[in-house]
């Protein structure tokens, strides 16, 4: 892996429009049964504009930024050797159906440990008004040669 990736900030990816049915589909896939995830009426009764996405939904928005990282020509990351090490989501407000979200990736850390490399990538996700919604942080482990 190219150590010069550290500190690199990528161009924002195309905006992601959060659809109500996508939120419901994702909710069912992660065994979410809370009506606020599934039923617009229940969500509105709880003070939300529409159904609220589960806490890990931001990974769907983040995915395009990680694809940028893996495709970086001088990155030197062999995606067949990549294992997901850590994941974190830090919210300023929940994701709600109807949001238009834009993610921007920054590589915050590159480390080597016993032949493996670890890259920490932080995707900052903002809404159409430019306000912060969530930061998704992934640490990917790139296994060294066996």
């Amino acid at each position, binding site marked *: 892996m190219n150590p010069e990736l550290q500190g690199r900030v990528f161009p924002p990816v195309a905006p992601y429009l959060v659809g109500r049915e996508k939120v419901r589909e994702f909710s069912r*896939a*992660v*065994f979410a049964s*809370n009506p606020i995830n599934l039923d617009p009426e229940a969500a509105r009764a709880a003070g939300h504009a529409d159904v609220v996405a*589960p806490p890990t939904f931001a990974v769907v928005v983040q*995915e395009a930024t990680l694809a940028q990282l893996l495709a970086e020509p001088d990155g030197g990351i062999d995606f*067949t050797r990549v294992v997901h090490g850590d*994941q*974190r*989501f830090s919210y300023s407000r929940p994701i709600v159906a109807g949001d238009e979200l834009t993610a921007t990736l920054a590589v915050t850390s590159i480390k080597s440990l016993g032949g493996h490399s670890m890259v920490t990538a932080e995707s900052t996700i903002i809404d159409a008004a430019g306000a912060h919604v969530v930061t998704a942080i992934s640490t990917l482990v790139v296994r060294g040669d066996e």
Partner: protein
Amino acid sequence: MTPVLTELTVGDIVAEASFALTRDSLVRYAGASGDFNSIHYRDDVAQSVGLSGVLAHGMLTMGLAVQPVVDWAGDPARVLDYQVRFTRPVFVDATDGATVAVVARVGAVDLEALIARIDLTVTFNGATVLGKAQARVNLA
């Protein structure tokens, strides 16, 4: 009813659940998330990279493990921050599936910020599969 922060004690179990995963669950998650890595539905591909067979997406395990916390808190919007470390794979047998068990305990209480940290113990076949699995929950 929202849980009352001052009634929580570090170590209290606030929620427990177990989830029966099948290959169908993995296909459903692949479609919903867009993660179509074939190690999550093809044994031959999983075995070609040294795994014993198909395993669950780590993000599926992370996603379901927080659901007992969401139900306890009453609203998914109360989860402000959620992190895990992926420590062991969850292998999902084609016929028997896999059962993932979750125990959620109070890890810390912040009476000024009105936030509870809930620590998750997530196990498959008696071994933990997530490390440092913590959700910060707004109980204001």
